[in-house]
């Protein structure tokens, strides 16, 4: 019973420290002084390069999107329709079309998520807040990696589709 009071104080102190630590972490993201200096000094040129990346991304996204759209609607969809009309419907090819369209939607959403973070990065004050800027840059890299992965998955689907078409071709008359 005699130890109750100090124990309570200790428990209270631990609770206060835990709550404080959860509310305001000491340093969520730390970078070296050299890096901070480099970002602050080169802030204008970094932003200029990011703006160029943003423009290139926009152009590349539209170009890739047009190719995906063309494959999905002008080729895959029309082929599957034609197969159905000839009573040659192929479940594998139909499934590939569905997977491709669903992955294309994922690519669209990944790109929007990435672009929003890149836009936020460009709007940040890198001269006075280099640490926050670099933290946001890491997030932008993660989002860009998602877009890249999505493109690779689309490539894989298209490669499989080509193989399936060649397999399917074997069973057809000349």
């Amino acid at each position, binding site marked *: 019973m005699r130890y109750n009071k100090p124990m309570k104080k200790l428990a209270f102190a631990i609770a206060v420290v835990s709550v404080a630590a959860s509310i305001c972490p000491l340093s969520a993201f730390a970078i070296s002084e050299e890096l901070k*200096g480099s970002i602050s000094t080169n802030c204008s040129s970094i932003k200029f390069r990011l703006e160029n990346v943003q423009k290139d991304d926009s152009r590349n996204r539209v170009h890739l999107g047009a190719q995906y759209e063309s494959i999905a609607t002008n080729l895959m969809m029309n082929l599957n329709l034609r197969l159905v009309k000839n009573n040659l419907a192929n479940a594998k090819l139909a499934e590939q079309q569905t997977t491709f369209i669903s992955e294309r939607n994922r690519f669209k959403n990944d790109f929007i998520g990435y672009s929003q973070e890149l836009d936020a990065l460009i709007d940040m004050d890198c001269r006075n807040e280099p640490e926050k800027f670099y933290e946001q840059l890491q997030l932008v890299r993660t989002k860009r990696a998602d877009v890249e992965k999505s*493109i690779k998955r689309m490539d894989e689907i298209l490669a499989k589709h080509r193989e399936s078409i060649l397999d399917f071709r074997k069973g057809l008359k000349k």
Partner: protein
Amino acid sequence: MSEEGNSGHGGRNLIILGISASVIAIVTTAVSLNIYRSTGDIFLDRSRPGYIFEDEKHNEEDDQKESFSNEGEVTQKVVDEYLQEFDKINKRITEASDDFSLEAISDDSLGITQDQE
């Protein structure tokens, strides 16, 4: 007396109408711009100044030529035609596959160096 009163009200109503119209226009424009940004359309809109060049417009026209009819029989020859069209587009996709590599936003590409003097 009554006519003067009506004329006074008319002027005031006109001002209220003008202000209301302006407020509605500002609010709806703000909402539209917000939707334009939040849906991500802004990132695809290359009609913004500096986003598209003349030579790119021509390339885009060429991009949309491939197609495959959904009518007719299905033979090996037809599938070959399909593959021919497919390969044309797939080649362009493969060429663009590295457009979103991380290299474009690496520290080196952005000019962020850690070895400052």
